[in-house]
């Protein structure tokens, strides 16, 4: 890890704070998780209060790619292309268990986890995940963005909480 002085670490923190509170998401919505995504984004479980309320439907203008719903093999090249079109810094959230591991669609048509194609930052399992889980995942993503250095280097994973 590079040496950080007082100024660069303050800068990193400021950048992290600014980035985490202004998330422009690209909701790559395919399937049922899209309904829970809509529920999270709307008034009841508002995601706008986290600064993440404005979806940008162009990959060039977005920084977080929310992959919501099952990805089939037919759709996989499209997903990869969208990911490659996004500009750094970018993060990927695997929303729903179909994107984490393929879910219970263990068959010829489904990608068994999008981390086989693109790197993933936060996994939100659930079929579909409750909006509270989505918000928890979003907060974890925000913590990750906060800890990320301005050089773009990915931080180490959060230490596991200790259960007594």
């Amino acid at each position, binding site marked *: 890890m590079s040496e950080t002085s007082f100024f660069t670490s303050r800068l990193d923190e400021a950048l992290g704070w600014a980035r985490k509170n202004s998330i422009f998401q690209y909701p*790559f*919505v*395919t*399937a*049922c998780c*899209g*309904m*829970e995504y*809509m*529920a999270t984004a*709307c*008034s*009841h479980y508002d995601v706008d209060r986290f600064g993440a309320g404005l979806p940008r*439907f162009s990959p060039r203008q977005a920084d977080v790619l929310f992959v919501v*719903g*099952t990805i*089939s093999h*037919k*759709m996989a090249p*499209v*997903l990869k292309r*969208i990911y490659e079109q996004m500009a750094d810094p970018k993060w990927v959230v695997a929303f729903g268990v179909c994107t984490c591991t393929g879910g*219970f*669609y263990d*068959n*010829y*048509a*489904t990608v068994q986890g999008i981390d086989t194609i693109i790197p993933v930052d936060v996994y939100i399992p659930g*079929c*579909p995940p*409750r909006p509270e889980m989505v918000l928890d995942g979003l907060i974890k993503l925000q913590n990750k963005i906060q800890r990320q250095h301005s050089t773009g280097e990915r931080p180490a994973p959060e230490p596991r909480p200790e259960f007594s």
Partner: protein
Amino acid sequence: MPIETTNLTPLDETAGLETRDMLLNIGPAHPAMHGIIRIVTKLDGERIHEAEVEIGYLHRGFEKMAETVDFNGVMPYTDRLNYVSPLINNMGYCMAVEKLVGITVPERCHYIRVILSEISRISDHLTCVGASAMELGAFTVFLYMIKAREYLWDLVEKVTGARMTVSYCRVGGVKADLPSDFAEPCRKAFEETRKVLSESDALLTRNRIFVDRMTGTGVISAEDAIAYGITGPFLRSTGSDYDVRKDCPYAVYDRLSFEVPVGMRGDNMDRFLVRMEEMEQSMRIVEQALRDIPPGPVLVNTQTGHPIPAAEMVDLAKVGNINAFSGDSAVTCPTLEGSSRSQHPSIATEEKRVFLPAKEDTYGNIEGLMQQFKLVMFGHGVRPPKGEVYFPVEGANGELGFYVVSDGAGNAYRVRVRPPCFAIMSALPKLLTGDMIADMIPTFGSVNMIGGELDR
């Protein structure tokens, strides 16, 4: 050389400019919230000459998976077909298998299924109308409708335990009975939904922009719609009044009085109005059903007058004191909701080879234990006779049919879903041709394409 076209304005004709069609690819990743689809359009300026639709981006192999798991195990897969109205899919599949096995379910179970199907239908129409209004710029209506949908989902969660993917029906019944305090939250939820519907109506129905964009676009005639196999609100907006609930009634729909709204012109505005009215009719159905439903489970203990806890019953059974509790009902923990003897007469069919026994019987006598084993052991389970059936229900988009073939094994031999929006999507090129590119938004929104159902 000017291209010969039939719908040129006089200005273009006199100008004699050379024109060439432009190919525009829309999707598969696109902003509309409905699903992943690819439309390749050939445009002349803003007007669509030809459109080709490519689907299959969400094909998850439902029909193949249904052959690998047993009949009750298909339930979660059916939830994810039309994921905005999962209870209708559950019900359709269960009724198809029940028809194949040849059993009937108790009347209260029919009423419960009807109530939850109609609630699902309302949430489907809310999502469809809300999302298509949002795409036209009416973001407020979307937020209002999702708010109403949250109330309905709270209701569904009270009954089934899950908001969306519920897996509530079982072959031969439902998972558990309605909670005893269902009527009051239901009434409140409907009050809120009616408020939302009247607000959205005030915002949209006579809104100049909305009316201009929706009227006259995406027009299809009734004969064309029938030729494509279109059913449901889409067909009813063109003038034909085919509704599976009225024409081929199933469950208890023949006892409930409701109207089927029918449009006239077959354009997007008619579809919007048909869906808004259908939501009101669905609420009417649920209210009638709650009034007419036969009474529910009664917890009875024949000896002491109150039911005994399940743990006590198991202890008595272990020491062999079966007589102390025979005929009594147990209070089980919430995760075993629906498995106690008190609920069984109202939610389960009597056919022993299909539905799990009451927990009191599983632990209390050998017949119940065998019934449990025969249904739960790998390779056993529900084993219908050899045969094929087709059972249609009225899905939110049209006739949702299940064609089930069985060869006597524990899992289905073939399960085919007749998806209602497949037919509508096959007619989409016809709907889009001749309209402008901006008319594609309301047309595609009113199609209510659900990827899970279209591609399965």
